[in-house]
């Protein structure tokens, strides 16, 4: 218990009813925030894409159409739920929840604010701060993969099965790149705990954007993480999972009504979670300048400003994902796989090793002016040697 939740000061002392209540309230807030967040994200996505296509977008339900996704959700709740005769009933029912529950859980490790005092207890504004930290995210997205795989398998229908194989192969491939990109940060931080990583990126002035936040020191890992996170959440241009026109949908073809909606809920929730993790790992999480004209221990600077900065950064990233969605066409499946296995995984791996070498060199006091070019050269050499071993398209053609 202590090992798992060591970092949160709330759980280090005696655990009484107040502590329990605080944890329950935090859980509820995260739960509701994610549901409302998905609702608003879908609405904002449709509005922004409409902007980018000279349209208006949803506008009828509520002011500016903000309740459109709520209306869609209510509609899906009351729709008939059909199930194929050849399905494996229990697994068929279980699969949507295998998707949605990890999507909820993964957000638990995201720090959305600073350390505050509630009812005499100091606590961190995040649901859980386990020592395994970021690994929890990888574990949860790994379980989410089972939701897709089992949904396609239990449908008892060949197209969902093919779709689920396609989806799980894609997620598996990009999970490797995602994990290795995270290593690029962990080498710097030396810890897995998200709270500790965020604390290392504390705001000490405008310069800390470039020196303390990990996006610049780990710029390669940052780029790889963003790409892999898009693929991991089946976001365009990697959304072959839902390629209705050319690939008969995917694992969710035989699902209807609210069960179908749960998959989409999980997908959008994963987009939000991945963006939040990117903010946490690379963009300083809730760190940002406080307001100078109010006392540094007032509620504005302890409560409001960190939450404000977190959500501002999150929204910038989410806008970027929508921008990507509106701009890029869907990738072909073999190119998708090639991109992961031939480019992203090697790059992430070499970036992590090179960063490791430089960090060790810095700690040992080696000359970085010599070490850095040498490491970069070595990384490029290894990459080209690796690529030389991979048959080119022309050679593959001859083999066929």
């Amino acid at each position, binding site marked *: 218990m202590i090992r798992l939740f060591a970092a949160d000061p709330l759980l280090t002392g005696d655990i009484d009813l107040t502590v329990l209540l605080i944890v329950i309230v935090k859980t509820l807030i995260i739960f509701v925030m994610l549901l409302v967040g998905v609702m608003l994200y879908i609405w904002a996505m449709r509005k*922004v894409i409409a902007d*980018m296509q*000279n*349209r208006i977008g949803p506008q009828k339900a509520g002011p500016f159409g903000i309740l459109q996704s709520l209306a869609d959700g209510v509609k899906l709740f009351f729709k008939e739920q059909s199930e194929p005769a050849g399905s494996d009933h229990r697994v068929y029912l279980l699969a949507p929840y295998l998707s949605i529950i990890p999507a909820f859980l993964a957000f638990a490790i995201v720090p959305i604010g600073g350390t505050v005092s509630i009812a005499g207890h100091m606590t961190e504004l995040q649901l859980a701060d386990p020592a395994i930290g970021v690994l929890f995210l990888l574990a949860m997205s790994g379980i989410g993969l089972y939701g897709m795989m089992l949904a396609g398998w239990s449908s008892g229908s060949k197209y969902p099965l093919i779709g689920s194989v396609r989806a799980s192969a894609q997620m598996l491939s990009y999970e490797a790149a995602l994990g290795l990109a995270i290593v690029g940060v962990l080498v710097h931080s030396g810890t897995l705990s998200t709270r500790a990583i965020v604390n290392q990126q504390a705001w000490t002035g405008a310069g800390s954007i470039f020196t303390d936040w990990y996006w610049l020191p780990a710029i390669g890992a940052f780029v790889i993480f963003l790409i892999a996170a898009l693929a991991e959440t089946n976001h365009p241009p990697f959304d072959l999972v839902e390629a209705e026109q050319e690939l008969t949908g995917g694992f969710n073809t035989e699902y209807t009504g609210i069960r179908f909606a749960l998959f989409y809920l999980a997908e959008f929730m994963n987009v939000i979670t991945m963006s939040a993790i990117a903010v946490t790992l690379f963009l300083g999480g809730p760190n940002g300048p406080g307001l100078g004209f109010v006392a540094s221990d007032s509620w504005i600077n302890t409560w409001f400003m960190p939450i404000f900065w977190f959500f501002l950064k999150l929204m910038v990233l989410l806008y970027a994902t929508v*921008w*990507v969605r509106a*701009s890029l066409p869907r990738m072909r499946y073999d190119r998708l796989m090639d991109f992961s296995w031939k480019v992203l995984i090697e790059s992430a791996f070499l970036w992590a090793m090179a960063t490791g070498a430089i960090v060790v060199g810095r700690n040992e006091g080696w000359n970085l002016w010599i070490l850095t070019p040498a490491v970069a050269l070595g990384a490029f050499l290894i990459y080209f040697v690796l690529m030389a071993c991979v048959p080119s398209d022309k050679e593959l053609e001859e083999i066929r």
Partner: protein
Amino acid sequence: MGKFSGFRITIAQVFKPKVTGDYPNSKRPKPERFHGRHVLNRYEDGMEKCIGCELCAGVCPANCIYVRGADNPPDSPVSPGERYGFVYEINYLRCIHCDLCVEACPTEAITETKLFEFSFTNRQDAIYTKSELVVDDQGRAQRQPWELWLGDEDDQTSGWMRATASAGQAEFEGKVGWSGELGVGVRAAEPSQDKTRTAIAPTSEPEEVALG
């Protein structure tokens, strides 16, 4: 930029005006000779223009018009001539809005409006009878409960909405080619189809005629 030029294009669209309008709260202006639903016009003295000749019914390619003429009652004539349209029905489930009836009409009794947004819930409503088609005492189309109108959309309901204009021929240029109408009077001549020339003033002034 090549592969990534899509990003520039999409973000540039954000700052451009929207193409989509706020239909049905506001509507775009319709083309001048838009073919909507019909009206039966009346003369300025309130007499009906229709003489029950059935030419419209004869020319209709969709067979959607049903007309029966009858002799005018001598003491209270409905139309200036000998006969009048006793029954006049148009079935809008069949009408293809080709405007051939308007072309065929010798008295400009039937013309098309720009109104087209109907949502009938039964077939009986789709058949417009004479009492629904004929213009009211102000010379305006009569609004049916299932029609969606905004503002003064029913304004342009009269003879100058013909599909082809006599002004297309040189000898008709600047001449008023139709009789006066209830509520409107004599309309100005149509502008020349030659864009280089300015519109020509009407040759006859509309006359004020008391309703008969």
